[in-house]
């Protein structure tokens, strides 16, 4: 994170760019990663709904993937997936 001089900081310490937290890739935290088995997926969207990061996205083909820049590997999606289509796999 770059420092700023006192003149560069906006008055009142206001942050003008909404959603700028996206600069920080929380994906670096994780030890496990969710992997989807599209054969089992029923495209219900529960993984998308239950992700605390909001980083599970529906792709063009209708299946879901986690944005690995942000996925913290909590495992909620894998546990809640009704047809058991998601497995948590170790990183690295």
């Amino acid at each position, binding site marked *: *994170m770059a*420092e*700023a*001089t*006192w*003149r560069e*900081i*906006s*008055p*009142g*310490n*206001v*942050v*003008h760019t*909404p959603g700028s937290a996206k600069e920080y890739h929380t994906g670096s935290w994780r030890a496990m990663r969710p992997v989807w088995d599209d054969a089992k997926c029923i495209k219900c969207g529960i993984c998308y709904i239950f992700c605390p990061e909001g980083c599970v996205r529906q792709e063009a083909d209708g299946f879901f993937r986690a944005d690995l820049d942000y996925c913290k590997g909590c495992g909620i999606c894998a546990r809640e997936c009704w047809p058991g289509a998601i497995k948590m796999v170790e990183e690295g």
Partner: protein
Amino acid sequence: MAKRVGMEVAIAAAEAVGMCNIDVAAVYPITPQSHIAEHLSEIVADGRIDAEYITVESEHSAMSVCIGASATGARAYTATCSQGLMLMHELLPIVSAMRLPIVMSVANRPVNAPLNILSDHSDIMPQRDSGWIVIFSENGQEVIDLTLQAYRIAEDKDVMLPVIICIDGFILTHMVEPVEFPEQKEVNKFLPDRVPYATLHPDKPLTMGAFAMSDYFPQMMKAKDEALVNSKKTILKVWDEWEKQFGRRYRPVETYKAKGAEVLLLIMGSMGETAEPAIDELRDKGVAAGLIKIRLWRPFPFDELRKAVKGVRVLAVMDRAVSFGDSGGPVFADVKSVLYSEDNRPLTVNYIMGLGGRDVSVEDFVNMAEGAVKAKKEGYEFYGVGD
């Protein structure tokens, strides 16, 4: 042509606030501010101004409501003193850091314990590091003028800082004084609508009050200090504009018969008016006495004070509050530090007086001046309290 009326100063203060086209007032009652709160609510209830008057459940919430409203771009006002101001204390540095131009009347009253509903400055002194502009008034006319000027100063794009107008509790708030109100259209010319720098609105989502780590925090504090110090330029400019439009002149430091003085008394607030006849009496007796009145308390008027005391032999600083465990009162501490590096600085003594509403008479001021003349070393004394 403005008409002179006799009016209780608290009522006059509320009337002045009414003339400022405020949007939101959030007020919690506390003696002796209550007449301001009550009369302002009458002004709103009669539809004389279009504002939201929020009867909050505490002073802390009064300031919080003002913050929320000011952050949306509204012109917000509150008033308090004593315990109420102490309860708001948590929020004051937040308001100035967030650069929200809230205006507050403080009806100076002692802080507990013991509880005392009369008048002294112990409520405002703990706020001196809060980053707010603090201006003391001496009489009813000043209360009106300073209140009308407050938003003009606070909302100026070169300032964007909150302002406190101090009004001594009871000895000023409850006095009926002859005052003049300018015409509303003149006030409207003097005080334009607020143009906020940043507002809470979905069209431009922004975040106010983010937390900061040590990489940014010190710079933010410097920015805040620079803002307050630089605000003096604008305060002087606004006082200039006021004089041109309304004829009355305001200065950060006022002097009375200070020329050629051997001893100067220094005071803040309404007791300055009692000190003046004392100066006259001393002069008649052959004592070369004079008076300095500090009107602008924060940002402190360093240059004006140094200029005012140049050449005087003794400076007697009057404090109406105590900085316990320190060497006297807070004004004494500030004055000493301002004069520390001056060549030929005066012998500076401190009288702590007028605490808890104790009356200070003309004779008391004469006594204090004569005591100061005889003083041999710096120090402080609780006047009239005994050993």
